[in-house]
Structures are given as C-alpha cells and as structure tokens.
C-alpha cells in the first residue's frame, strides 16, 4: 500500500478536534520548526523536498518562497488559496473538512518560514460549513498556544484568519484572490509586480494552495530529502487526486506520484474501473483547464510507454498527445458521453466565469460557447469548427490572466482528438440528437 503523508488519519473519529489531532502526532512540525530551526532552514527543507504547487501550475514551492521580498519594516503575508473551484477538483475540501488542524499546522510552520505574522485562508463562499470547521479549529489552536503571541515560547507571533469568497471561479487566480481579499471585485492584476513583491494591501505575499501548505508538515517532520525520495524525477511526494465522472469509485485519493494511470483508474485501491461495465472513452486528468485525452492516450503515451501520474508523464507528447497533472481533478468519461456536449458545457463555464476585463477572453469565451451550442444542438456547420480554432488563436496568450488560455486549450484539444465526432454533429445533426457517437478509434499511425 502506498504511503499517505496527508490524509492517513482523515477518517479517525474526531480528528478535527485539537486533542485527537495532537494525539496522532499533530503540531510536531510547529514544535520542530519553531524550537530547533531558523526560518531559512525551513525554506531550505521545502526546497530540498522538490514540492511543486498543488493548485495547478506546479511551480516549485521552495523557489516561490525564496522570491518573497523582505524590505525592512514592511509586513509580509501568507495567503492560503482554498477557493477550489476548478471543475473536477474537490480535494482541498476533503482535507479541510476532515483535517482542519493539518492546514492550520501547515499555515503556522509556513508562515514562520516566511516571516509572516498575519496570515489568511481565503475559502470559497459555498464551503461555509468548512469555514465554520476551520474557525473552530483556529480557536482551539489559539487556546492551546499554537497561534497568537509568543508561540511555544519562541518569540514568534502569528494571527490566522479564515474568510469567505462569494462565488466566482476567477478568485482562485492568485491576484484576483488578493483583490477579493481586499474587499473588491475579483479582477486579476497585471503582473509584474508579482504578489511576492506587491501582494495583499501592497505587502509582499505568498499565495499557496491548501494541499501545498499541508505538505509542508510532513516535509518538516521527515526532512526534505526523505520527501523527495517518494515519486519520480521532478514529481516528488504524494498528491491528492480527486476523481470524478463515470467511475466505480469516484472520490479523493492520496497517491504517490509515479503511480500508473492504469492502476489509478482500474486498481482495487483506487477507482476500480469504469462504472456500469462500460468502456473508457476519454479522460481530463488535471481539472477542466487541461487538455482532454482520448482513451488510447490515457494509459499509454503516443510513444507506447505507460502513462504515469506525474507532471512529466501526463504532459508527455505536449499538446499534440499529452495533457497536464494540473490540480489533480481527474475526470473520466465512459463510452456513452458526448464530447461535443461536454466541450460546450465547459465553454459555458468559462464564458460564465470570465471577469470581463480583457476583450479576447470576454468576447472569445462567449463566442466559443455560442458556436459550440450550435454544434451540439445540430445547427452547426463545418466552418464553425475552423471558427473555433480561429477564436482560440485570438485568445491564446493575449489576456491578463491564464483563464483565457484555460478556456481555449481544452476546446483545441477536443477538436484535435475528436474532430470526427464534431463533424458527425454537422453531417448527421438529427442522428446526433438521438444517439451518441461512441468510441473513436485510435489512428493507425499512433
């Protein structure tokens, strides 16, 4: 059985309470860091661990931390991104609901490493019940001297606050999140300056995903090198994967990076295969913003090697035949699913969530949604398919934040791999309203 570093104790009764969490070794990383390590030493361990951001982009956490500006007399902040709104992603909710103290422990140890004395958890407004769980746990941490003044007699002070969003996917983007945290509309900021220089209220700020912050706990406890031994290449440690769609056993799993995709989908310890005895048609392995893979590229790469759950292997083949690990939102489609319908569904999502600041994204996402609606509802033409590709090119790289790309890439990938199915919607519109296209066959020359 694979090692679990984050959610091993998630199902222990009352593990959400301070005392029970403590009985299972909780807050050891705070004791170790504050009593025996300098902030720089903690940063060093995180660098050694090879931990990469678990929010989607996969940027090395230790490196991000070392970019934090430290001007004299200016406050710094750590902000936890608990917005979790990338479709297919529901791992942070599980972690926070079951193990609120793990996140708080990670916030304390990480804030100490960064020299932040006022840190924030920004959680999506729909998770209000999880916010209440966190509030209760934070109050317990204060009562037990883990937060507040002079923590464990170390002279280090930290205040931690959890605060809700109001329903806007874009607030998961880190600069939109900071705007929102300042009480404004969630319009992403122009970069540079990056948050590490000018973040919350203009102060140097690190924004990290819930899971990244939680991972700092085992890294400090066991050492960065031990953590880096798990996994393959530059994909170190464990990762929470939230699996959804047509699976026998969807849910949240902690995997060691390097597990094969085959084992994850079909293995007894994981998703146990496709629901209702159906066949796999496609998979979006890293949340709705990453390219879709047709069934013949899910468990194998185009080169014929086993596809693994790592940043590198899932991206193998680039955009031509690969995808991305992203946030770990693993969405599985069975043979009865319609790719055109799903592509339209996600296009509608992005059109709905575009903040409207840049015209390529605001207009482009709306256009794509309309064109895909036509195709799905039997009113499309073959030109519509090329039109989608053109709109895509206009959005790509021309926007303030990556939402534009996130909307465009998946459409491009769907057309690339499922063109036949799109064309069928045009050529046989009536039939397409009645039945699904079914599986596509792999190209002979793979």
């Amino acid at each position, binding site marked *: 059985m694979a090692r679990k570093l984050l959610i091993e104790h998630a199902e222990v009764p009352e593990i959400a309470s301070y005392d029970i969490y403590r009985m299972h070794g909780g807050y050891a990383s705070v004791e170790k860091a504050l009593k025996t390590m300098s902030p720089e030493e903690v940063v060093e361990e995180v660098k050694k661990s090879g931990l990469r951001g678990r929010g989607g982009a996969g940027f090395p956490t230790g490196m991000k931390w070392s970019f934090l500006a430290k001007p004299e007399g200016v406050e710094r902040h750590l902000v936890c991104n608990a917005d979790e709104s990338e479709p297919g992603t529901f791992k942070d909710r599980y972690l926070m609901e079951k193990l609120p103290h793990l996140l708080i422990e990670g916030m304390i140890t990480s804030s100490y490493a960064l020299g932040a004395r006022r840190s924030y958890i920004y959680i999506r407004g729909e998770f*209000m019940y999880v916010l209440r769980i966190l509030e209760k746990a934070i109050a317990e941490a204060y009562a037990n001297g883990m937060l507040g003044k002079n923590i464990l007699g170390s002279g280090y002070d930290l205040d931690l606050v959890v*605060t809700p969003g109001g*329903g806007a996917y874009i607030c998961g983007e880190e600069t939109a999140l900071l705007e929102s945290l300042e*009480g*404004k509309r969630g319009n992403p900021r122009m970069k540079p300056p990056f948050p590490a220089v000018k973040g919350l209220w203009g102060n140097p700020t690190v924004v990290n995903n819930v899971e990244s912050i939680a991972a700092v706990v085992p890294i400090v406890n066991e050492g960065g090198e031990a953590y880096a031994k798990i996994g393959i290449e530059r994909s170190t440690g464990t990762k929470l994967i939230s699996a959804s769609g047509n699976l026998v056993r*969807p849910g*949240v799993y902690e995997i060691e990076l390097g597990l094969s995709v085959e084992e994850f989908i079909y293995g007894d310890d994981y998703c146990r295969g496709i629901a209702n005895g159906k066949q796999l048609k496609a998979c979006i392995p890293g949340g709705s913003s990453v390219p879709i893979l047709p069934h013949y590229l899910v468990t194998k790469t185009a080169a014929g090697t086993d596809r693994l759950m790592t940043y590198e292997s899932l991206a193998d083949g680039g955009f031509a035949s690969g995808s991305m690990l992203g946030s770990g939102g693993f*969405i599985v489609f069975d043979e009865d699913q319609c790719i055109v319908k*799903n592509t339209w569904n996600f296009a509608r*999502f992005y059109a709905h969530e575009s903040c409207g600041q840049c015209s390529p994204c605001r207009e482009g996402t709306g256009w794509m949604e309309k064109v895909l609606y036509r195709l799905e509802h039997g009113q499309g033409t073959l030109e519509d398919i090329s039109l989608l590709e053109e709109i895509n090119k206009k959005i790509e790289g021309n926007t303030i934040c990556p939402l534009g790309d996130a909307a465009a890439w998946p459409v491009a990938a769907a057309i690339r791999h499922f063109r036949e199915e799109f064309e069928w919607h045009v050529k046989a519109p009536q039939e397409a309203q009645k039945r699904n296209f079914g599986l596509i066959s792999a190209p002979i020359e793979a």
Partner: protein
Amino acid sequence: MKVDHPQAVNEAPIEFSAQTMTEIQRVMGLFPEGKKKSAILSILHLVQDEFGWVSVGAMNKVALLLNIQPIEVYEVATFYTMFHLDPVGKNVLEVCRTGPCQLVGSDDLIAYIEEKLDIKVGETTKDGLFTLKTVECLGACGYGPMLMCKYQFYERLTKEKVNEMLDAMREASKS
C-alpha cells in the same frame, strides 16, 4: 437588477438584527485598522442569511458600516454570484450543472426538480418555498449529481433523495 435604479444611493438603509450586527462587528474585527473593507463578503453573507437576499437598502447600510461609498458595495455584490439581488424563495436550490456533474446526470436532476416543483430554472414556486437555480461547479464533483441549499450540500442525488429533501424542507418551513 435593482441597483440600476438611478435613485439607488438614496434608498434608505435598512436595519439589521442585533445578532447580525454582533457578527458583523466580529468579522470586521478580524482585519487590521484601515482594512475593514476586507470583511465585505463576510458581511454580505450575513445580510443574506438574515433576509434571504441582498437589497439596495441593505447594501446602503453595509456602505455606512464600512464607511465606504454605496457603489463600492454594489460593485462587489453584483460581481459574486452567491448573492441574490432580488427576492428569492425560502429555499434556494442551487444545482450544479458543470461537466463532472453533467457526466453523472445533472441534466436529469434539473429536469426532475423542474417537474416536481412545476417551475423552470430561475423561477420561484407560487407558495414562495422554493427557487431553482443552476450554478457552476461547487467542488463536490465526485459526489454528483448534487445541489446546495443554505450552505448545505446534498450529494449523489436520486429521485427518492430529492423527494425526501423537498419534504423535509417543506416540513422545516412550517415552523
């Protein structure tokens, strides 16, 4: 949307309950001096919890409490989709319609609720008990089809579970 009204800023601020006011003081206390505006989303949630929706009068009151211009509150309230800017039913059923939920039957779920309540998405039942809305991914994708009502998640919904849920909500609304 009512905030389009040219007289919006002149609409009289409404009073909040003592309990809401206490909570507002608490969430404002979470942020440093001069940064109280950061509490605005918390406050709008509290207002909606009390009244069921967020009226112009309520937003004007929030502006007074935070010592900011009313437009700053309208801007925020209109940006975030959780805030209802028009009156809604006692129970707002917010069904997730996004990809992963759609793969496991959210279309059927929406159609079933429409039929059961005899309303379309966006409408409120005549007795004022239910409003049906669709929303984008709620972070429960592996447990779909699902909906949220009063911050509570109802997951892996079937027709039977929907019937039970609606009955329980009707019962709770009687008291």
